[in-house]
């Protein structure tokens, strides 16, 4: 769709540039820091890998090194926010929000302090570090909390925009980032607003709703499906909470078939969120592509994405099967 200003119109056999989503966060945080001196940052001993070093180098006096202490990370964040700061606190998603959920619940959500929690290295594409570091339950954990917004950008360009947007948003928020290079699919002109989903490819036979690293895979899948006579609509859903109900409902009322795709457990993740929403408002046949109640393991990212069914091929296979069953 031309008004989405994506990098390409067609994705199959088209060369794309790769960049880790977290890099966009690093640039966005520095730029948010330039725009507003109340933007501050804290990290739990992972400043380079979460890309906070760009902010730290530019604004040393507004950066707090917490050490390996994730409970302290988010509660110090709550204190900074209480005094009018706009804190971004980062670690790996497996540790934050993996280890400090209650502190996030009480001192950020219930206490209504606008802390931005950044969880990097989410998903199995973390690779050789193995299951302990491949966070697959963070969306579920954060989505269950009242007063929390949950965002998973689709590429580094969108992560940069989302970070700048979060600095102005001033509500408790969680953003998940990935370690490995992810295809750059969007441009500076591609729209992004917190709470909005975007139709990246129009179609009439089926709706594929994807988030984070899986949106590129969904775009590839829609082209494979087109060759098989299935005209799929791809919705990129970077904000998992609050869901863009209007965009999703409009599409699903047209296509009446739904696939969700995420590099996360399907239980309680994007697939969970869409199931809950459509179950109450417009039940249609649907399938969820994602991790199915399993932990990851060591390996190369591409081996793991294949093993856990997180590629365009898997989306296509699932979609074709659903299309056949629904006929």
């Amino acid at each position, binding site marked *: 769709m031309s008004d989405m200003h994506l990098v390409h119109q067609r994705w199959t056999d088209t060369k794309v540039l790769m960049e880790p989503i977290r890099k966009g966060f690093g640039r966005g945080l520095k730029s948010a820091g330039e725009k507003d001196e109340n933007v501050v940052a804290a990290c739990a001993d992972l400043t380079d890998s979460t890309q906070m070093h760009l902010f730290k180098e530019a604004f040393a006096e507004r950066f707090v090194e917490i050490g390996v202490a994730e409970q*302290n990370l988010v509660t*110090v964040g709550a204190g900074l926010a209480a005094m009018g700061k706009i804190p971004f606190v980062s670690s790996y998603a497996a540790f934050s929000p993996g280890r400090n959920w209650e502190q996030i619940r009480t*001192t950020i959500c219930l*206490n209504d302090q606008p802390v931005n929690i950044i969880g990097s290295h989410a998903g199995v594409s973390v690779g050789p570090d193995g299951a302990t570091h491949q966070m697959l339950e963070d969306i579920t954990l954060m989505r269950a909390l009242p007063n929390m917004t949950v965002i998973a950008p689709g590429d580094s360009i969108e992560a940069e925009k989302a970070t700048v947007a979060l600095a102005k948003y001033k509500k408790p928020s969680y953003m998940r980032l990935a370690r490995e290079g992810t295809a750059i699919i969007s441009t500076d002109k591609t729209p992004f607003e917190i709470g909005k989903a975007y139709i990246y490819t129009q179609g009439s036979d089926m709706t594929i709703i994807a988030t984070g690293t899986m949106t590129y895979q969904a775009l590839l899948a829609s082209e494979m499906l087109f060759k098989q006579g299935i005209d799929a609509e791809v919705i990129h859903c970077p904000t998992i909470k609050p869901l863009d109900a209007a965009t999703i409902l409009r599409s699903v009322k047209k296509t009446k078939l739904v696939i969700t795709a995420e590099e996360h457990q399907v239980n309680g993740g994007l697939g969970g969120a869409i199931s809950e929403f459509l179950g109450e408002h417009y039940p249609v046949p649907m399938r969820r592509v994602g991790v199915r109640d399993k932990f990851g393991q060591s390996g190369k990212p591409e081996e793991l994405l294949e093993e856990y069914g997180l590629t365009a091929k898997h989306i296509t296979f699932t979609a074709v099967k659903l299309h056949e069953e629904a006929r």
Partner: protein
Amino acid sequence: MGGKYSLEELEIKANDIREDIIRMLEYAGSGHSAGPLGLADIFTALYFDVLKHDPAKPNWGERDILLLSNGHCVPVRYAAMAHAGYFDKNELMTLRQFGSRLQGHPERTKLPGLESTSGPLGSGLSQACGMSLAMRMNSENHRWIYVIMGDGELDEGNVWEAAMLASKYKLHNIIGIIDRNNIQIDGPTEKVMPLEDLSHKWESFGWNVIDIDGNNIEAVIDACSMGRANTTKPTMIIAQTIPGKGVDFMEYDFKWHGKPPDHDQAKKALHELRTLGGKIKGEHE
């Protein structure tokens, strides 16, 4: 000292606050008795002498911050706030009831004057660190952050994460007060999870440590002054308190940690408080 109340007036206030705590807990039918009674002298010292605050303007930008990390002791804070003029004393009887601003554990968004939401233990000192860092970034040099913590709460790892951070960044406008009453829900702290040597623990974490009798209002005021005078280290006041202080049958008994008095017990407790343990004749008796 140098506040607007004499020591004698402060002691009477502490007693009034204790009476309100008993009435509130009896009426609510649930809640913690021992901790709030033991903390009445500390809260009296804070709200009527130590804190820079304005009950008419709870969000005043230059106010000192008081964090209650052990949120279950909030009845003493509510009572002290009502006596200080934050809200009408009649509202105290809504404690723990449906629709009340006085939630069972304090919620910042419900009642102006509460600085945070607490209940789950161990996160107050961390929030104080964040606040102190923000004040430093803003060059706000004349605001202090007081954090009340329970002793059982020190079992939480989060506390020691904050202890290290405050020391690292020399957050000297933080003054912590540990309610060292030696009890927690499952029994004496030294049986449940030994904390001693507590003073040396904090000292070794880089804190300025002051040991006091936490039921001596003058000692609390003096220790806070000493804490403010230290401009290199955060201060931890270890305040030895008597759990259930002022009510003979509750004092030192860990069974009163988590329960309220029934009607007869409340009557007995109030009588004791009004007569200062039989030393004087009750006014209304």
